[in-house]
């Protein structure tokens, strides 16, 4: 089947975002090298921003884990990023964006740009992906942009699983998730699959990236069980992360990277108003912080900094699906609601005796659902443009869009939830998913990686404590002779 026309519609819709006639010239004789360059600069730099989000997840997860596990989290992040890059190159990209049927793509393995039909995309490359042919950027730019997305989704998966998961467990799940599970769901919408054809809208991935990650995370934590000491006599205990400063650095990096995540998802620049998307994204993030701060104050009577940070991410996740389809004020509402939900949901998760150290489930899961549904509430006619979708309930829509969004979410939950459950169970009953109690007590750094992440905090490192027969402040090397001063 040929999806080109559908995808063209998608791009045209993008142009309409700007409200101007758009690339009249381009219609005739294809994009100019200049236009391709502009589009590529935007998309590649957007991808770089999304790649940078790995630093954000690293800092967030490190900051909210225990000091004795900080190095293990660092190792996990870098191996998972690597797995995502290689697996998505090998199989994921083809499954997600290659030509195929409505359920999965079936060509383009190893980004191999030749297909049986010998089709040619607009950049003069033999193309396996008619879906991409409509974008005025090289296939490599599309790949780069998409591969960093899957890496984000994978990073989310492990947010709930800190402090107790075996390294090998991360690796195996990562391979399956990035090479198989995620790409299939991505194909349904972004690859022009059945959900796209039904009119399902998820601009930058509230459900595709975030909800999927959170679903796998939920399965992971359920199968792992809580960390030792998390629940005592049925009551959740505080196990504070060891560094709020690093966690907050992570949040800000994520916020920054999200500018590429959402605004870059136009997958082009000429004729597209991506600044508008960036503004919506910022507004939602800010409102999310306000929401979480207020709710924390009201419910806990304290200003929990980690939840203020969660609020930002909740707002960002929620606005990810609707960012191109709604007005600024709607972005504020969407973010605010997402933020307000965080503190009560954190408590709820605790009550269900689910251990989620970084708030992954409220922030990526529930917010992802909320954001995807919000499209069905707030999307405006003019912003949807030529896409096969309908305005939101509050903008004169019949509610049909809300229904489509709803069953899109259900499909994602069903598929990703089930697949993740199977994979995690398989790991558990073969090589094991969780470290031993002793190893957990000792910390993953020393038990899996042979060395603490902060060695000087735990072991006697030779010379760690600066002692010497004499030492004095300042400037030795500049004002004193090189011999040891008497």
């Amino acid at each position, binding site marked *: 089947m040929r999806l080109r026309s559908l995808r063209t519609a998608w791009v045209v819709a993008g142009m309409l975002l700007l409200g101007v006639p758009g690339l009249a010239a381009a219609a005739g004789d294809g994009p100019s090298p200049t236009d391709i360059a502009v589009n590529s600069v935007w998309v590649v730099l957007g991808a770089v921003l999304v790649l940078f989000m790995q630093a954000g997840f690293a800092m967030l997860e490190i900051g909210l884990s225990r000091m004795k596990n900080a190095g293990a989290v660092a190792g996990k992040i870098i191996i998972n990023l690597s797995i995502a890059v290689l697996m998505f190159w090998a199989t994921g990209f083809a499954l997600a964006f290659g030509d195929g049927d409505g359920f999965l793509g079936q060509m383009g393995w190893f980004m191999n740009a030749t297909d049986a039909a010998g089709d040619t995309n607009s950049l003069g490359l033999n193309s396996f992906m008619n879906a991409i042919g409509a974008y005025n950027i090289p296939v490599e730019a599309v790949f780069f942009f998409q591969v960093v997305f899957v890496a984000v989704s994978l990073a989310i998966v492990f947010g709930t699983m800190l402090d107790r998961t075996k390294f090998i467990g991360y690796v195996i799940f990562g391979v399956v998730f990035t090479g198989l599970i995620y790409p299939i769901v991505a194909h349904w919408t972004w690859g022009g699959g059945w959900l796209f054809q039904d009119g399902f809208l998820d601009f930058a991935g509230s459900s595709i990236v975030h909800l999927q990650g959170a679903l796998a995370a939920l399965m992971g934590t359920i199968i792992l069980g809580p960390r030792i000491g998390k629940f005592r006599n049925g*009551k*959740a205990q505080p196990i504070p992360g060891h560094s709020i400063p690093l966690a907050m650095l992570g949040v800000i990096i994520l916020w920054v990277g999200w500018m590429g995540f959402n605004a870059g998802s136009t997958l082009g620049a000429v004729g597209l108003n991506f600044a508008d998307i960036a503004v919506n994204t910022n507004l939602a993030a800010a409102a999310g912080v306000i929401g979480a701060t207020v709710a924390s104050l009201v419910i*806990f009577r304290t200003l*929990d900094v980690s939840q203020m940070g969660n609020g930002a991410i909740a707002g960002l996740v929620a606005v990810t699906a609707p960012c191109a389809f709604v007005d600024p004020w709607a972005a504020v509402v969407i973010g605010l609601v997402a933020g307000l939900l965080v503190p009560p949901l954190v408590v709820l998760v*605790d009550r269900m005796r689910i251990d989620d150290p970084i708030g992954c489930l409220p922030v990526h899961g529930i917010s992802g659902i909320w954001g995807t549904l919000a499209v069905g509430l707030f999307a405006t006619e003019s912003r949807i443009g030529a896409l096969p979708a309908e305005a939101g309930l509050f903008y004169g829509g019949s509610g049909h869009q809300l229904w489509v969004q709803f069953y899109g979410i259900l499909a994602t939950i069903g598929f990703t939830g089930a697949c993740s459950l199977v994979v995690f169970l398989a790991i558990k009953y073969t090589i094991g998913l969780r470290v031993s109690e002793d190893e957990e007590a000792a910390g993953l750094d020393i038990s899996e990686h042979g060395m603490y992440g902060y060695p000087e905090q735990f072991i006697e490192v030779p010379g760690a404590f600066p002692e010497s027969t004499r030492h004095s402040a300042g400037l030795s090397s500049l004002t004193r002779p090189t011999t040891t001063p008497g």
Partner: protein
Amino acid sequence: MKKIEAFIRHEAFDEIRTRLAGMGLPSMSISEVKGSGRQGGYTESYRGARATIFMRPKLKLEMVVDDADVERAVDVILELAHTGEPGDGKIFIIPVDDTVRVRTGERGDVVLAPHPEDEPEG
């Protein structure tokens, strides 16, 4: 020879050290401890979960002094560590059998003789 072990507030230490040094007793060691006593715990909260912290940070001051110096040292600590609020801490006096100075190998009371403090370097 006695060892004085005093569990005090951090804030008090600076002045105590200065006063003791001025009396010829600059030799001492301190370390971080956490303690509980009459002073109650306090509640901390993280992501909605609450717990009470009973062990609060205190400073442990240890100094071995000659029998003759015990009372004046205790008096200094008592005076300067005192705020009147719970949590001011306690002082314990423990017998010591012998003392050795590593640098010289000297032993006994001579090691503990009061001495003025040296000038700072650098």
